C-alpha cells in the first residue's frame, strides 16, 4: 500500500476513533458512568466485535490488517505517556496520617485477588491455554494473578470526585489504597514479565540485577537531576519547550531502559513519573501540558487498538461464557472480599468496608494496559483476552451503581446535613450558583436585596456555589488535593461585592458531572428557600429559560429566580406584572422583599382584556395583593395599576420601560415558561431593556402544571 494512502487511512481512522470516543464518553457521563467507560466501549465498537460484525466489508476498508501496526505505534506512545502521568499523580505524602489501615487494606486488595487469580489458573489452564513456551503454567498463573489485582487509580479518583467522597475518610483510604495498589501491581507485573520472558535461573538473576541497578540509578541520579530541572522552572516560572523536551526524552529513555532490561517499557515510564518532585507548580504545569494530547488523542487510539484485538465473537460456546462469568466472579470476589474484610479488620463499619471493596474493584483502563501486555507476550490467548476485557468493563461499570447501593449519597451527606439543620434555626437561605466570575457581583447585589438586611442578618444565609464541570477535567486523573474546596477563583468577584455590601456569604466549590442536577441536589441538602441564578446567552437560540435554567427549575425542590442583569444598580421603581398565579404570587413576595430592603416603590401591574377592569376578578386580585403586604410591622406602599389590553405581554413591555427592575413569574400568559430547548420566544425578556427577575415557585412533589392554571383568577386565565 502506498505511503500516501496509509497517511490518509490513518487520518480517517484517527478522526473516526476520536469522534466515536468523545460521543460515547458523553453518553456514558449521561448514564452516570465514568467517561472512560464510554471510551473503552467505543474502542470495542470499532473492532471486529461490532463494526466488523455488522459491516465486514467496510471494516476491512477502514481498518485493513496491515494498517493496524501504525495505530499500535501511536497507542503505545500514548500509553507510555499516560503511565508517566499516572506515576506523576502518585504522591507518597498520601500515605501519611493514614496509619496502618491503608497499607493493610491495599496489600490485602492485591494479595487476595492475586491468589484467587492464580488459583483460577488451575482450572482455566487445561481448557483455555495452548501448550506454547510463552504459556507455561507459571507465567499464566502469575499473569492472571497480576491482572486480577490491578485497581485503576485514575478512574477511582474520578469516581470519588464525582461523588464528592474524596474528602471523606472512606475516599481518602480508597484513593491511598489504589495508589499503593498501582505502584505494587506495576512492580509485580515487571516481575511477571521478567518470568514470562526469561527462561532459567541465570537470565532471571541477570534481569533482577539489571532492574536493581536501573531503580538505583533512577532514585540516586535521575531524581536529583529532576530537582535541578525544577529549579530551572522556578527561576523563570515557565515550562519552556526545551525543558519539556528534556523531560520527554527522559521518559522515553527510561522506557527504553526497562524494555532492554526485560521488564517492559511501561514500567520505565511509570517509574519516571513516580520519582518526579510532587505537588509543585513544575509538576502541575508539566501534567497540564501532557494531559490533553495524551487523554484526548492518544488514549482513544489505544482503546481502539484494544477493541480491534478483542474478538467477542470467539466466545461462541456456552462454556466460554461460563468461564467469562467465572473470571468476573473471581476478580470481584478477590478484590471486593480482600479489601472489605481487611477494612473491617481495620475497624471500619461493614457498610464502609463494603464501599472500600466496591471502589477497589474498579479496573478500567489499567486492566486493558496489562491485558495488552499479556497478549503481546503470548501469555494469554485471544479468547482469554476477550474474556478479561469483558471483566474489566463489567467490574468498572458496576462500581458506580453498586457503590450507590452499598454507600448511598444520603449516607455520606445525610449526617452532615442533619447535624447542620439541627444546629441552627432555619434562616431564609439563598443559594447562588455561579458559573462565570462576571456573574457573581450582580447576583450578590440581588441576594442582599432579597434576604433581610442587618440587624436581621442572622435570619438569612447566602451560599455561593461554583460547580466546575467534570468535562473540563481530565477524565482519567484528578489531582485530589486540588479538586474541591471552599474557595474558587470564580467566586472571588462575588465575595468581593458581598464584603463591600457587608453581607456574609458562604462559598462552596466542587466538581460536578451534571451541573443542573447537582445544583438541585445541593439546594435540597442545604434546604435552600431560593436558588438565585444568573443568565448567560446560550450558544444556540435566544431563550433565557432553556437548557441549564430549565433543568434547575424542574429538578429542584426550591423556588428559583433567574436574574437578567441589565446594568442594574439600584431598585428605585419595581414593576410586578401580576395575574394571580402561584408564580406571580412568588414574584410579588420577592419584589416586596427587594422593595423593603432597597426602599423602592413597588407597582403591581394587572392586565385584563378590554372592558374588564371593573370585574370581580380584578377585585379578587387586588385583595390578594393587599393580603401579601398586610404585615403591619412592615408597611409597604403598593401602587396597584390595572391596564386593559388584549395582549398582556405587550402591556408589560410597554410599561416596563419606566422601571429599574421587573419581577415576573413564569406564567404561561407572560410567555415565560421554561423549556429544555428554549425555542419559544420570550418577548418580555427580549424586548424589555430593564433588568428582570424571573421567578418560578416550586410546584411541589406532585405535577403542578394544571394547578398553576387553576389558580389564575384574572381575565386571561
Amino acid at each position: 500500500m502506498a505511503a500516501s494512502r496509509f497517511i490518509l487511512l490513518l487520518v480517517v481512522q484517527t478522526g473516526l476513533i476520536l469522534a466515536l470516543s468523545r460521543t460515547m464518553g458523553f453518553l456514558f457521563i449521561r448514564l452516570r458512568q465514568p467517561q472512560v467507560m464510554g471510551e473503552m466501549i467505543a474502542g470495542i465498537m470499532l473492532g471486529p466485535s461490532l463494526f466488523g460484525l455488522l459491516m465486514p466489508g467496510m471494516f476491512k476498508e477502514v481498518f485493513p490488517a496491515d494498517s493496524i501496526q501504525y495505530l499500535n505505534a501511536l497507542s503505545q506512545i500514548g500509553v507510555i505517556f499516560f503511565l508517566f502521568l499516572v506515576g506523576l499523580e502518585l504522591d507518597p505524602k498520601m500515605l501519611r496520617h493514614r496509619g496502618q489501615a491503608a497499607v493493610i487494606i491495599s496489600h490485602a486488595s492485591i494479595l487476595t485477588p492475586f491468589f484467587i487469580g492464580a488459583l483460577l489458573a488451575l482450572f482455566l489452564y487445561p481448557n483455555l491455554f495452548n501448550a506454547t513456551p510463552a504459556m507455561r503454567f507459571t507465567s499464566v498463573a502469575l499473569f492472571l494473578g497480576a491482572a486480577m489485582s490491578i485497581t485503576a487509580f485514575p478512574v477511582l479518583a474520578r469516581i470519588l470526585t464525582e461523588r464528592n467522597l474524596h474528602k471523606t475518610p472512606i475516599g481518602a483510604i480508597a484513593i491511598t489504597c489504589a495508589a499503593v495498589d498501582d505502584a505494587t501491581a506495576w512492580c509485580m507485573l515487571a516481575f511477571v514479565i521478567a518470568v514470562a520472558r526469561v527462561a532459567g535461573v541465570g537470565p532471571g538473576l541477570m534481569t533482577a540485577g539489571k532492574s536493581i541497578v536501573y531503580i538505583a540509578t533512577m532514585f540516586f541520579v535521575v531524581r536529583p537531576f529532576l530537582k535541578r530541572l525544577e529549579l530551572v522552572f522556578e527561576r523563570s516560572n515557565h515550562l519552556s519547550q526545551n525543558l519539556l523536551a528534556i523531560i520527554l526524552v527522559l521518559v522515553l529513555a527510561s522506557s527504553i531502559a526497562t524494555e532492554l532490561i526485560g521488564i517492559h517499557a511501561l514500567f520505565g515510564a511509570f517509574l519516571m513519573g513516580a520519582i518526579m518532585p510532587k505537588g509543585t507548580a513544575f509538576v502541575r504545569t508539566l501534567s497540564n501540558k501532557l494531559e490533553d494530547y495524551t487523554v484526548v488523542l492518544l488514549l482513544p487510539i489505544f482503546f481502539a487498538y484494544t477493541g480491534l484485538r478483542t474478538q467477542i465473537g470467539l466466545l461462541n460456546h456456552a462454556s466460554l461464557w461460563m468461564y467469562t462469568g467465572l473470571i468476573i466472579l473471581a476478580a470481584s470476589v478477590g478484590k471486593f472480599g480482600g479489601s472489605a474484610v481487611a477494612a473491617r479488620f481495620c475497624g471500619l463499619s461493614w457498610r464502609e468496608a463494603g464501599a472500600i471493596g466496591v471502589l477497589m474493584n474498579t479496573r478500567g483502563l489499567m486492566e486493558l494496559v496489562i491485558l495488552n501486555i499479556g497478549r503481546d507476550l503470548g501469555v494469554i490467548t485471544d479468547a482469554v483476552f476477550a474474556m478479561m476485557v469483558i471483566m474489566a468493563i463489567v467490574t468498572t461499570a458496576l462500581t458506580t451503581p453498586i457503590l450507590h447501593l452499598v454507600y448511598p449519597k444520603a449516607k455520606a451527606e445525610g449526617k452532615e446535613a442533619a447535624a447542620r439543620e439541627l444546629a441552627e434555626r432555619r434562616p431564609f437561605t439563598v443559594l447562588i450558583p455561579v458559573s462565570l466570575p462576571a456573574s457573581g457581583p450582580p447576583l450578590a447585589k440581588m441576594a442582599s436585596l432579597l434576604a433581610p438586611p442587618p440587624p436581621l442578618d442572622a435570619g438569612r444565609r447566602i451560599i455561593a456555589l461554583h460547580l466546575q464541570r467534570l468535562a473540563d477535567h481530565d477524565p482519567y486523573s484528578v489531582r485530589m488535593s486540588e479538586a474541591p474546596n471552599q474557595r474558587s477563583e470564580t467566586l472571588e468577584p462575588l465575595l468581593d461585592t458581598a464584603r463591600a455590601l457587608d453581607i456574609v456569604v458562604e462559598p462552596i466549590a466542587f466538581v460536578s458531572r451534571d451541573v443542573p442536577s447537582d445544583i438541585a441536589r445541593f439546594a435540597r441538602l442545604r434546604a435552600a428557600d431560593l436558588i438565585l441564578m444568573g443568565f448567560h446567552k446560550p450558544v444556540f437560540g435566544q431563550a433565557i429559560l432553556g437548557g441549564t435554567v430549565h433543568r434547575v427549575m424542574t429538578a429542584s425542590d426550591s423556588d428559583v429566580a433567574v436574574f437578567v442583569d441589565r446594568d442594574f444598580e439600584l431598585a428605585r421603581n419595581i414593576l410586578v406584572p401580576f395575574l394571580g398565579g402561584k408564580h406571580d404570587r412568588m414574584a410579588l413576595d420577592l419584589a416586596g422583599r427587594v422593595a423593603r430592603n432597597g426602599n423602592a416603590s413597588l407597582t403591581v401591574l394587572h392586565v385584563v382584556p378590554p372592558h374588564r377592569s371593573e370585574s370581580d376578578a380584578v377585585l379578587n386580585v387586588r385583595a390578594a395583593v393587599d393580603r401579601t403586604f398586610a404585615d403591619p410591622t412592615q408597611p409597604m406602599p403598593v401602587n396597584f395599576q390595572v391596564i386593559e389590553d388584549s395582549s398582556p405581554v405587550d402591556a408589560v413591555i410597554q410599561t416596563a420601560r419606566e422601571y429599574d427592575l421587573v419581577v415576573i413569574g413564569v406564567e404561561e400568559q407572560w410567555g415565560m415558561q421554561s423549556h429544555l430547548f428554549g425555542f419559544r420566544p420570550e418577548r418580555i425578556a427580549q424586548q424589555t431593556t430593564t433588568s428582570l427577575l424571573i421567578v418560578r415557585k416550586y410546584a411541589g412533589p406532585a405535577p403542578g402544571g394544571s394547578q398553576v392554571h387553576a389558580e389564575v383568577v384574572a381575565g386571561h386565565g
Partner: protein
Amino acid sequence: MHLGMNRTSLVYLVVCAMFALGIWAILAVGTAFLTAPRDLAGRWGPADAAASGEGFSISQSGRFVRISPDSGGQHFDVVLTQSSRPAEGTADQVLEFDGDGWHVEGIGSAAGDAVKFTFRGPAGIQGPRSGTYRHERMNPTNPPPATPVAQGAH
C-alpha cells in the same frame, strides 16, 4: 512473644507468608500436573497428495478451536474432546474435535509439525480435504524470545 510488633503487624506477616506459600503450592501443583492442549494455532499447509490444494488456518484458545479454510469458505468452531497420549511404541497422538456439525480427527507426532487430519462435516458443506498438513506457526515472535528483546513498547 513480643518482638516490638503489635497484633496487626503479626497478622499481616502471617497473611503474607500464607500468600507466598499458597502461590508456591499453586505453581508447584500446576507445573507438575497440568498440561495445556497442544498448540495448533497457525496456518496448516498441505503436506501430502491427499491434502493437495489449499490449507487452512487454526485460531485456538485451549480446547476451543476455529478452523478457517484458505479457500475463503465458512469457518467452523470445534472443541477438543479427546487428546490421547502417544500409544506405547509410537509417538503419535490422537486429537478429536467436535462442533458446528463437524467431527475432526488429527493424528500425528506429539513433537512434530505434521498431522493427518480427517474432516467429516455436515452434508453439502465444503471443508478442507482430509490429509496430512504441516503446521506453519502464525506468529513467529510468539512465543517471545528467551532473552530480552530490544524493541519498542511491545
